Every structure is written in structure tokens, then in C-alpha cells.
């Protein structure tokens, strides 16, 4: 079977191959990229959320409600009823294994990935 591609066909084929290369790199390239996050309240699993669905979550903790934002594969605390705001200062989490915690409110967020970049975080 022979495939006789004319010039316009070739343009489509080349564009498609470029698209495929992009897709493989984007979705297969970096296995350490987090895909989901586990939210724990008081050490118990509260929920597992996808990092690919942009949303804001309101999580009830011991002190009150902590607000968590998910955007474009990243997750962070944006509000918490604690004094130190350590959780908010931790900033965006994106790699598998990264953790942010609001200890006073007993809420922790842990990024899950296929191949965790880190098994533990030292601080």
C-alpha cells in the first residue's frame, strides 16, 4: 500500500506529528508532575481532588474554614483561620510529594503523582 501525499496533505501530516510530539511531552514527559492532591483533616482523608479541575474548596477544620485554590495543575492555601499563615506562605504546590499544612486548623494538602518527586519534605 502506498500513500501518495500531496503538499497540502504533507502540511497536515507534519502539523499532526508536531502535535503528537507536544502531547507525548506534555502528558508523558514529566512523571513527577502532580496529578491529584489528597486533603486530610485531623489526619483523616477528607478528599482527593484533581489538579486539572480549577476550583476553590472550602475545607472545615478545627478552627474554622480553610480555603484552598486549585489552578492549572497547582494547589495552594489562600485563606486559613490560623495566626501564622504558614500554610499560605508555603505557596503553590505542584510536584508529587509536596505538602502544605495548616497545623492549627489540622488541614494538610499533599500532592500525589505517578512518580513522586519527593517522598518527604524537610523544613
Amino acid at each position: 500500500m502506498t500513500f501518495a501525499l500531496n503538499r497540502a496533505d504533507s502540511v497536515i501530516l507534519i502539523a499532526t506529528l508536531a502535535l503528537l510530539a507536544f502531547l507525548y511531552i506534555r502528558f508523558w514527559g514529566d512523571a513527577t508532575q502532580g496529578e491529584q492532591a489528597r486533603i486530610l483533616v485531623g489526619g483523616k482523608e477528607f478528599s482527593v481532588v484533581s489538579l486539572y479541575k480549577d476550583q476553590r474548596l472550602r475545607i472545615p477544620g478545627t478552627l474554622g474554614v480553610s480555603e484552598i485554590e486549585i489552578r492549572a495543575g497547582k494547589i495552594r492555601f489562600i485563606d486559613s483561620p490560623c495566626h501564622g499563615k504558614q500554610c499560605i506562605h508555603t505557596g503553590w504546590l505542584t510536584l508529587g510529594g509536596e505538602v502544605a499544612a495548616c497545623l492549627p486548623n489540622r488541614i494538610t494538602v499533599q500532592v500525589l503523582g505517578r512518580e513522586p518527586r519527593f517522598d518527604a519534605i524537610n523544613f
Partner: protein
Amino acid sequence: MPAFTTTRDDHLIAWLTALAVCIHIVESVLPSPLPGIKPGLANVVTIAVLVRYGWRMAAWVTLLRVLVGSLLLGSFLSPTFILSLSGALCGIVALGAARALSPCLPGAELSALGYSMLAALAHMAGQFFVAYALFIPHPALLHLLPVLMTAALLFGLVSGRVAQALLDRVT
């Protein structure tokens, strides 16, 4: 009793749709290595009709094929149908766009091969994003996208080649 008048085009559409539906049904009964990956040979009819009779006719045949096929298979309004329909819609929209833009393309107009690749990729992409958005918004699904698109490219080339052979016979 109301009088129906049918044109020659209507008959053509009916016959071609019947052919496409046959392929569609045969293919749906064949076991597939992975759900979501099918040769999409019914696409051959769409492409052949597009090249021979134009986009309007191809759109009719494709949409009717999805509708009639699902009614016969009993999958009408099921997720399978919704996925088929969204894929088919994306495919014909892409073909329409390619047709409309073909005067701007360099050199030649797309051949059956080019149209077929385009339709298969658009079909897969549309189907995938509807599946992701409506049924399983699971990030692991995204890892399938490159594989599915690769399969779409290969099957698109194959059915394009078949459509070309078909057109060579007819003319």
C-alpha cells in the same frame, strides 16, 4: 396524505448512509483491543462522499450514520452515542473548515488522505474531550490522549487510503 418529493441527492444520501451504517455496525461488533480505539472505517464513506459530492452531502451521511447506527444498535442517547455524535460533529466541522480554507492552502487541495487524517484526529479529539468533561474527569485519562491521537492518525491514513482506492475505482 402529505406528498413527499425526493430528489436524486436524497436517494444518494440514503444509499451512502446505508453503506456507512453497515460498516459502522460491523465494526462495532468486532472486538476492539482497547475501548476508544476503533479503525473508524465508516470514515471511508464520509471522505469518499466529501471528495466526490462535497461537504454538505458528507455531513448528512455522517450524522445520519451515527443516528441510524445507534438506533439499530440500541445505543441511542447512551454515552456511546453521545461520544460518537460529538466525534462525528467535530470531524465534519474540521472537514468543513479545511474545505473553506483550501483556497488559502499552499499548492494543492487536500487529497482523500489529508481529509481523512484531519477527520480522524478531530473525531478523536472531540470524543476525548467530551468523555473527559462529561464522564470521567480523571487526570490519568489525559495520559491516554497521545496514544489515542497516534492511533487516530494511523487509522486516518489507512481509511484515507481505502477511500482513495475506492474513488480511483469509481472514476
